[in-house]
């Protein structure tokens, strides 16, 4: 087991290296590296300023530094005259130490911004997954218990229908029903204490959780039906145990494998969905910060956000992999 974990961990590190390299590389090949660190003043023509052809306007304000000084300093600090792989090395050693650069918007360190936003997004993910599992398990058990009957058929159509609803439409419709029409929830994110935070997370959690619940329900139902054919289930039934006891104590646990596997994959959908849900329900999380940074071309935030999100996603899948091998030892043997 230890060797298995060690090998998986090594591959996790390799993937993380590749992921950060790709993010940094894309940022600097598709975008302008100087712009990425200093923002709009990157367009100042410093050669012309030095030659005295153009005045450095910002340098004249009371004691302020000239744009060209800022640019020259950024070039030094970020080693912009070095080759891309070298710069990646410097950048990587910076972010490992928690230095993601400075936001263009308010000059705050990106790491502070991320540290402020990350817990909210994580809470949202947690609530959404809890809702997804909480809805999917009873739904699947009820559907499998009376398979191919009217409830099961209706829930098949229902889950396919739910999968076809775009998360932004679901979010807007939930917002309309529960906030605008029935006024059950506030339209603003309430950050006073955990209870109010959780309350603010109900609707966005449903937005992300319901489509995931549909996926889980499909998989779990199929697995439950397979397990219900097993001898030990017939045995339990022959012993006269109640159906409820059999479904939850004997059938459910061995049927959870597929659901655990897609747990990691569904996280990707939820991360994408959280960009949308945080926008609709005004949650100040990573997703919203990322979208706002994209609109403002605030590249340090974009890069930091993308790296954090991708890292989180990779780590979740790593943990799911480990969990899966704990539940099912055959996975280790296959590897």
């Amino acid at each position, binding site marked *: 087991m230890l060797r298995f974990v060690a090998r998986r961990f090594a591959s996790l590190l390799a993937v993380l290296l590749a992921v950060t390299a790709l993010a940094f590389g894309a940022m600097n090949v598709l975008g302008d590296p100087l712009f990425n660190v200093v923002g709009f003043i990157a367009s100042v023509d410093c050669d012309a300023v030095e030659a005295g052809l153009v005045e450095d306007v910002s340098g004249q304000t009371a004691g302020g530094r000239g744009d060209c000084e800022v640019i020259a300093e950024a070039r030094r600090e970020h080693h912009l005259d070095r080759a891309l792989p070298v710069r990646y090395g410097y950048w990587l050693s910076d972010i490992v130490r928690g230095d993601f650069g400075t936001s263009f918007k308010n000059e705050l360190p990106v790491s502070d911004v991320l540290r402020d936003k990350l817990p909210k997004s994580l809470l949202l993910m947690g609530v959404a997954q809890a809702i997804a599992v909480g809805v999917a398990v009873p739904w699947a058990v009820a559907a499998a218990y009376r398979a191919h009957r009217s409830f099961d058929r209706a829930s098949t159509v229902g889950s*396919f229908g739910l999968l076809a609803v*775009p998360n932004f439409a679901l979010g807007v*419709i939930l917002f309309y029903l529960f906030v605008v029409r029935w006024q059950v929830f506030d339209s603003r994110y309430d950050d006073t204490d955990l209870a109010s935070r959780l309350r603010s997370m109900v609707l966005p959690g449903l937005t992300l959780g319901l489509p995931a619940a549909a996926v889980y329900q499909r998989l779990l139902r199929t697995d439950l039906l397979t397990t219900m054919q097993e001898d030990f289930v017939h045995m339990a039934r022959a012993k006269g145990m109640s159906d409820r006891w059999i479904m939850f104590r004997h059938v459910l646990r061995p049927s959870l494998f597929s659901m655990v596997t897609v747990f990691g994959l569904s996280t990707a959908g939820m991360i*994408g969905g959280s960009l*949308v849900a945080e926008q609709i329900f005004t949650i100040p999380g990573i997703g919203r910060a990322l979208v706002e940074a*994209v*609109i403002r071309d605030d590249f340090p935030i974009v890069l930091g956000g993308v790296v954090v*999100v991708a890292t989180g996603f990779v780590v979740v899948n790593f943990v799911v992999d480990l969990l899966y091998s704990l539940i099912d030892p055959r996975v280790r043997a296959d590897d």
Partner: protein
Amino acid sequence: MAAGTRLRMPIFTRLCVVWLAVIVLGAVLADFVPGLQDPNHQGFLFGTSKTNDAPSWAHLLGTDNNSRDILARIVYGGRVSLVVAATAVATGTVFGMLFGCFVGYVRGKADAVVMSTVDVILAFPGLVLLLTVVTLLGRRDLVVIAAVVGFLSIPPYTRVARAQALAVSRREFVLAAEAIGTKKRTILFREVIPNCLPGCMGYALVNAAVIILLEGALAFLGLSVQPPTASWGNMVNAARVDIQINFWPVVWPSLALVFTVFSLNNVGDFIRRSRAVRSAAL
């Protein structure tokens, strides 16, 4: 394959095909549909229609908050979804299937390199990756969006095609071709790729649905094609502001998306099942 072994298409799936045909024809022929209004015509400027108007004979689905005809915007908005989905499917099938079938058939080092690249690209959640690349390119018109979506479709198709190719290359006809000394390249193009094609097609429809939802989310965030060009996602986003006044401008484009995605999933699922029956009948 004899026609008799084909799975009969259920009436519901036929309806889905009809809906998809209507959407495609509508998008292609939108300029020639009689009575369909200009999707960017703001009637209130000329006193001919009101903003957020209820459905009427003049505007079958009502008007949006700029007094534009919602039906026309949905028909034209379908263009964006379809162009993006079609590009994704075309690029994904051509390149993804080439790469995937190639590495799935030859295995070895090429396989390891291509698949680890694919894994790294797929390590980014789709919407985040799309958002970032579109931002970096700095332009948000249909060509750029479609190109980026097309490029990002290659990895998932590669993975699907590789899985197919792995299974196909163990089949007897491939072994037989190898035994009689057929060149590898010939086997790849004459035996492996044609046999991976049906599986990839089933995936293509499901993937088109995923892509349409992805573009919708991007448009909803205001980062896809820019207004006034209609797309289903940006219609929902624009209507969101006035949701207290009128709920329906949110519902119509959402329904268009739901029907389209549902139909693509349903038809894709049907193709997959009918293929399973056919391979069982072999």
